[in-house]
């Protein structure tokens, strides 16, 4: 069962993603802040991180830098309601797998996640 860490300060988004993905047999861990997500990443193995960019305690990109996901971490998908050239370029440099603009179609997000997890899977 793939395990996804969802990081978003909006309860509505966390609830929506939790319901959608648990009903599709995903194991979902929720974090309401970037610092909480860093704590979780320190102790839990996750297959993918799905994170918001703009959060009160810490920017999602700063969180990824601190977790060093680029060198040594699970694949990451960013979701943001405030897309910008700077954050997209920084996301590219941090080797983020996808950058999705809110509001998004949840089925499209599901496809992205499936594609990223499939790519991550070891060659059989």
């Amino acid at each position: 069962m793939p395990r996804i860490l969802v990081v978003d300060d909006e309860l509505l988004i966390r609830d929506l993603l939790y319901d959608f993905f648990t009903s599709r047999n995903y194991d979902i861990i929720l974090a309401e802040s970037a610092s909480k997500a860093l704590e979780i990443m320190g102790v839990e193995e996750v297959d993918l991180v799905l994170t918001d960019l703009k959060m009160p305690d810490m920017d999602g990109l700063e969180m990824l830098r601190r977790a060093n996901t680029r060198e040594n971490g699970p694949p990451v998908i960013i979701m943001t309601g405030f897309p910008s050239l700077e954050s997209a370029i920084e996301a590219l440099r941090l080797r983020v797998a996808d950058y999705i603009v809110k509001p998004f179609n949840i089925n499209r997000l599901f496809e992205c996640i499936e594609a990223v997890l499939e790519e991550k899977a070891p060659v059989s």
Partner: protein
Amino acid sequence: MSTEKVLVVDDELFVRELLEEYFSKLKFTVDVAESGEAALEMVGGNHYNVALIDLKMTGLDGLETLKQIRDLDSNVVVVLMTGYPTVESSIDALRAGAFDYIVKPFRLNELKDIVTAAIKEYDFRREITLLKEKVRMLEESIRGDSDNPDFKEENGGSQPRRSRLARKKAAT
């Protein structure tokens, strides 16, 4: 002398000449292409470490050139350059697997640092490719052995196991 090869793809002659001169002085081997189509012809027969590709070109654009180059040689590390940056094209570049996206005009030093990092990435990708190839060959060799009846016997295959002496007798 360095053997790293850089391919510069830009429809502007000035940019091609500038980057060719700059990276040649840094002891890189530099080839230039004035279009995406010309670049694809060159990638087939050469092993480039890094391709510096302009995003907005007539004919094949930078993103499409990136995708087709990666189909020909998945190890080539691609840096996109553009004077017309947009959120959409930077997201497309991220999804297509560009190593970097640099906005013109840029400082040559900045590009040099990106190319240096890109070469490290190339070495890493090359190592991964070689390891995958080794794993594939090992798997093939194991599969080949498992088709061999003796292998099946020795590894609990479907045929009844015989003693070493019985196998020796059967072989003579």
